[in-house]
């Protein structure tokens, strides 16, 4: 029983991490119908950005003060993520706005490979796992036999909190209305005085900020980072976005928690154990895409030419 509870807790924490990235996928897809394959790499880059901030920018005495070091790492990681996302949107995706559908998807693959290899070549020692600094609250909350690490708790709170903020922003603010309008019909939105380019850039920035937060938390939660984390976690996040229904904020978060739970529970109870947890997620992805492509909360699929 305690094993199950522990795995449930772990699943929720993994889900929280995936949710932060899934939000970026779902928003971008909602607005320009692009599977931004490189979003996972933005998350990875942010993680390295946070590490770089800690390693080279923070003075020695501040490194020991978690209250200062951690927020500064968040800032560093988020800034890197936002810069990468804006450059990517401007120079890779925007010129292809009217291109055939496959073109931006292939570009996204190119961006993904490029970012991964760029970090591998440029960041010192990036070929091996890099340890993440211990600026996160250590220890865990003990509830009976179940361990709830403070970092994990922070992760869940931040993830759900940010998702709520985002949802509120999109539903209530003027800019949020512009985003929804662009998602529904870019041309009419333009006629109504919405600047689609601005909306799209802003969408990418929001996604990058969330990915940035996720990148730092990933380092804290797993205590080391590597180049491949972006691709793997990105795929999980994409699956979550699809499961929840692409374009739906609430769907992405719930989908992410489901994926997190599937991963940990399958690793524990399914044949093959953790070596195959990855496979089960892909099986879920295929089943969802085949039998309910609109996801749990999405609108029915529009027929596209």
């Amino acid at each position: 029983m305690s094993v199950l509870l522990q795995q449930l807790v772990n699943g929720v924490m993994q889900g929280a991490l995936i949710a932060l990235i899934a939000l970026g996928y779902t928003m971008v897809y909602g607005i320009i119908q692009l599977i931004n394959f490189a979003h996972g790499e933005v998350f990875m880059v942010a993680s390295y950005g946070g590490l770089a901030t800690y390693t080279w920018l923070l003075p020695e005495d501040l490194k020991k003060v978690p209250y200062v070091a951690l927020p500064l790492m968040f800032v560093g990681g988020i800034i890197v993520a936002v810069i990468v996302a804006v450059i990517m949107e401007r120079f890779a995706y925007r010129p292809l706005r009217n291109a055939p559908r496959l073109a931006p998807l292939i570009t996204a693959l190119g961006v993904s490979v490029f970012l991964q290899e760029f970090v591998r070549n440029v960041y010192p020692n990036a070929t091996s796992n890099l340890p993440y600094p211990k600026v996160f609250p250590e220890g865990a909350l003990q509830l009976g036999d179940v361990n709830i690490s403070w970092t994990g708790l922070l992760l869940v709170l931040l993830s759900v909190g940010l998702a709520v903020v985002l949802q509120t922003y999109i539903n209530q603010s003027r800019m949020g209305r512009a985003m929804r309008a662009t998602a529904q019909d870019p041309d009419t939105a333009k006629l109504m005085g919405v600047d689609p380019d601005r909306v799209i850039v802003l969408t990418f920035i929001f996604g990058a900020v969330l990915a940035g937060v996720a990148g730092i938390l990933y380092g804290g939660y797993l205590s080391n980072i590597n180049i491949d984390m972006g691709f793997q976690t990105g795929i999980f996040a994409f699956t979550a976005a699809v499961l929840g229904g692409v374009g739906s904020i609430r769907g992405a978060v719930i989908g992410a928690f489901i994926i997190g739970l599937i991963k940990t529970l399958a690793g524990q109870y399914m044949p093959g154990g953790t070596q195959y947890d990855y496979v089960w997620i892909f099986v879920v992805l295929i089943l969802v895409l085949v039998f309910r492509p609109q996801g749990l909360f999405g609108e029915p699929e529009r027929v596209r030419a």
Partner: protein
Amino acid sequence: MSVNGTSSGKRSALAPLGKPFAVAGGVLAIVAALLPWVTFSLNDGNWPDKSTLQFFDAPFEVTGFRWHMLLLGVLVLVATFAPIPSRGRVIRALGWGTALVSFVNGAYITVKGGGLAAITALDGAVAFGSIVGLVAGVLMILAAYGIGFEPVGQWKVKLSTPLAYLVLLASFAAVLYAVAALLTTGGVGAANPYAGAIFLSFLGFAAGVLGALSGVGFIKWLSALSEQHRVFSVIVLAACALLLPFTDAGNEYWMTVAANIGIYAATAIGLNIVVGLAGLLDLGYVAFMGIGALVAANFSGAATAHFGITLPFPVAAIISAIVAGIFGAIVGSPTLRVRGDYLAIVTLAFGEIFTRSAQNNIGGITNGSNAIPGIPQLSLFGAEFNKSLTIGAVKLPAGVLYYVLIVLLVAATMAVFANLKFSRIGRAWIAIREDEDAARAMGIRTGKMKILAFLIGATLAGLAGAVFAHKNGTVSYESFKFLESVTLLAAVILGGMGSIPGAVLGAALLFVLPEKLRDFADWRLMIFGLALILIMRFRPVGLIPDAHRRAEMIEIADENAEEAHEEAKRA
């Protein structure tokens, strides 16, 4: 792609300068070819072909890239005054060629020689060759914008059949020569320290000349001609391919590289059926090649093979192809319900499931990360395929039999592709690619056709995989990961979707470049990612676009406008 507004603005400013710039560019290129390029001898000996100051020992000996520069300059001068169609395009291509040759050599000398002094002036020695060359290239490109771009020339020349055969024969012989030159230029390995730079420089030259030929309309005319005499072209092409071992490239090293390219080219052609013809993006395609390789390995009698039976290669290859084909149909079956980029994700998921399962040695048949080593080499009448071969007085390099086998494989794949493309099935695929709903309305059974595309594509990949297993002697899941799928896809896109020569060219480029550019091994994938982005941005139709595909891509802007209009109406 419509010509964007800025070029017309540039044109008006540059128009009167077109011809003068072209002449100046041509003359400067010739001058650059005769100037020294390096102020001193590099560490590894003279920069190729006496382009350092020692050049003045033999002022008329122009070889290597300087010979290319000279040719480019002369060609530009000819193009400026000769009555040719689409002068602007020709001069632009030659200009890029000149600029690339100068830039590659200049940059390499700068990096290797330790700073700009190496290509300017040092201790009283002057060597401005690369800078003059670069200026020449830029002038030519500007001149091209001044002259303006007419549509690519249309050649109306009709040839009688024997004459057409002669032209095709000459052209393919030239292709063979170019390929052999491309492979061997600069050499390879530690004995040739400048291999990477010389190769890139040659590539720049070749690209410039090819671009010029294509601009003047020759390539288009030639491809129409070869389309017209398809059977003859295929035979000649195959013969040319089989003659490669007799050229400079006929040594073990290049036979191995060429065989590897062939395997990937065959796989790329298979992928081209799925992506290029049927328009279904497959991101896990290399898994089928992996399945084929694993099946072949397990039936090969290797020590770690799961099944204790050893089948002769042809039987094992056929089984591999069939098994891969079955998996292809399974992976393709979601196409009945899933479309577009969602389908791409489904195929990606299948690909990842394959990699993971193979990595974990599923069912004991993949041997996980230990791979399946010791797959026996193929042999025919006692001649092992990896040994050198002596027929009478002719001694052929080692690995030549694999090369021949793989040429046959590529030829067979091409034949399958070409026959399908021009058949009822191929037309159905193209119709599905263009508009699935319309295709269905026209009575095409779209579901069946889409699964068929996956099945045939996977079968071809399985076959290629079986050859791959025997040739490399070992099969590991490492060779069939996501990145390989992306590379194959990139080969198809780079070459031109739906076009056969395109797939071969794309595979050749993507798998030769890493061999030649070992200096940049770490940066290879990064450049590759950047290349994908740039191709999609600047030449989404690929290097050798398929005629249909090309038309479609050019019209796409209008189509999109229409589509948006439709959607607006619907909402």
